[in-house]
């Protein structure tokens, strides 16, 4: 389980590098890089922080991952979470941070 950084999308703002609780991301030539993806805890802090949705989370194959990707777009208090399934189809779930968990 880890993250993937879409280097073409990355604008090098460095926010992901700052926020990671394991200090796992760095800028290399102005582009974000995770030298040790196997150290990732999958807390998605970086995914939420990236202003251009360049960071996607996936489940490692060793834990039964199927190749799907998760990323999120922030809009005020709304978080639009998008899962791109292995077959290319997309599912978006929106959560408002002013709403509590029902459970």
């Amino acid at each position, binding site marked *: 389980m880890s993250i993937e950084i879409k280097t073409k999308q990355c604008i090098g703002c460095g926010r992901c590098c700052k926020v990671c609780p394991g200090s796992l991301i760095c800028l290399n030539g102005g582009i974000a890089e995770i030298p040790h993806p196997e150290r990732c805890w999958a807390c998605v*802090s970086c995914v939420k922080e990236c202003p251009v949705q360049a960071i996607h989370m996936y489940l490692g194959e060793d834990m*039964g991952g199927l190749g*799907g990707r998760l990323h999120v777009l922030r809009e005020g208090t709304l978080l639009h979470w998008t899962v791109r399934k292995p077959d290319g189809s997309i599912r978006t779930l929106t959560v408002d941070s002013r709403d509590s968990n029902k459970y």
Partner: protein
Amino acid sequence: MEPQIKTLRTEFIETDFLIIGGGTAGCYAALIFCEQADGRVLIAEKANIQRSGCLAAGVNAINAYIVPGKTPQDYVDYARTDADGIVRGDLLLTMAEGLNRTVEKMESLGLTILKDEQGRYVTRGSRNIKINGENIKPILAEAVKEKPQITVLERINVFEYIVEDNRIKGAYAIGVDAPVLYVISAKAVLCATGGAAGLYKPNHPGFSRHKMWYPPFNTGAGYAMGIRAGAEMTTFEMRFIALRCKDTIAPTGTLAQGVGAKQINASGEVYEQKYGLTTSQRVHGTVMENQEGRGPCYLRTIGITPEQDEDLQKAYLNMAPSQTLRWLESGKTPGIQNVEIEGTEPYIVGGHTASGYWVDTNRETTVKGLFAAGDVAGGCPQKYVTGAFAEGEIAARSAAKYMNSTAGTFDRARYEEQKRWLEGFLNCPQASFTTDEVEEAMQAVMDEYAGGIGSHYRFSEKSLNIAAEKIRELEQQAQTLSAGGMQELVYILELQERLTLCKSVIAHLAAREETRWHSFAENVDYPDSSPKWNRYVNSRLEGGRLSILFRPLVQEGETYEH
């Protein structure tokens, strides 16, 4: 390529109140200290306080709250039953009395809490309230950053206390990026570094090895520093094993308590009643069902409504998004397929069990001026987020009082020794093993001989002896490792912390000659529990040797002093 770092620069920093670890307890303590005293506060944090520690991904509920009709004493009784008696009544009660106050404060800072039409918090079960916990850490971090009294020093890794005549004087740290040795002097110190993950082989030892429940970045620094400084520690034998969604290791409470999902075996039989309902019994039941061929085990979610199904997917996005990804990428959402569960590797976490510093009722450790709160502090299980806040509050008040009486001066020359030792790793050309290899070897030893997943959490005196010997060997190897830069140097320090803690865990497991908590401490030589062991197992490093001591139970109503 950056030039290879070979030497460290030394920086001296002075403060009044040093807080090690800007997590849940640390950040909250900083806020409370500012309400109590004028002194300078320095938070030394290895990452960035916005998302560091347990709260990074968010939490699903407030697990410790005194709901209407219940009292703090009820909470104490619950925690005592769950730990089968091995708790500190004084710590639990003082923590429980502070819980609701901390929730009010968090709400005033912006935490979303579910309320009914009358404006009362909506409860979940008899101790929880419902929140949106996704942004709980950023809310806390923002409040800290607004206080001019507080300085936050990020990306610095604290690794050793400065103690003279059993009185705290400060701590040493290194930069995670900058080649700097920080020598921090303080009048009072709070240790709030959280618990320890990564001692045992994890559920997925390969690529996904860090997909664990507890943060892999909480490496037990606070425990190890305390052990080395000769602080008395308690109840390391009460390990914590979490029952979690298989593979993603996501929490199960939302399924069990939220939609009432029951634990069932492969034949669909509800087995939880058979083994008991305490936290350790639930883990044990799952282990037994699997071992006796009735596994795998599940939480029965088939049959929930489509609306509940979607609400669960959203709820997990607020705390463990990997579970939602798992559901959606496979198409097997909880309404369609039961959620398989498994036990994790053992952790040492004083916020769930009772492992950690032996503190007095004011949360002062046996080292004068050194306080402890949150997962690193012992004797007070089931504290969770709000309990960590409440302990941070008590510790901050105690530290504010202590400050007036002491000054933080010490012999500065000793830092040279630390600097040379650290530079040794940076200048070591090539070591026989890498840090990762030694870490993996340590996890394998703990798994096989000290009751990890692979040994169904069981151990014996003989197996613990082997574990102790092998860990000692690995400790030698960990002194001759090579670091290619600051981050690698941090990894070496983290490994050494874990090895130090492993030795204490092994000694504690061996000392409690009974099985009081299945799975958490399953001693095959002593399969039953005995009233003789209604006491604490504590330990202290004395003259280089770890000695075990036993202490009688402390009840609520008492004020415990060292």
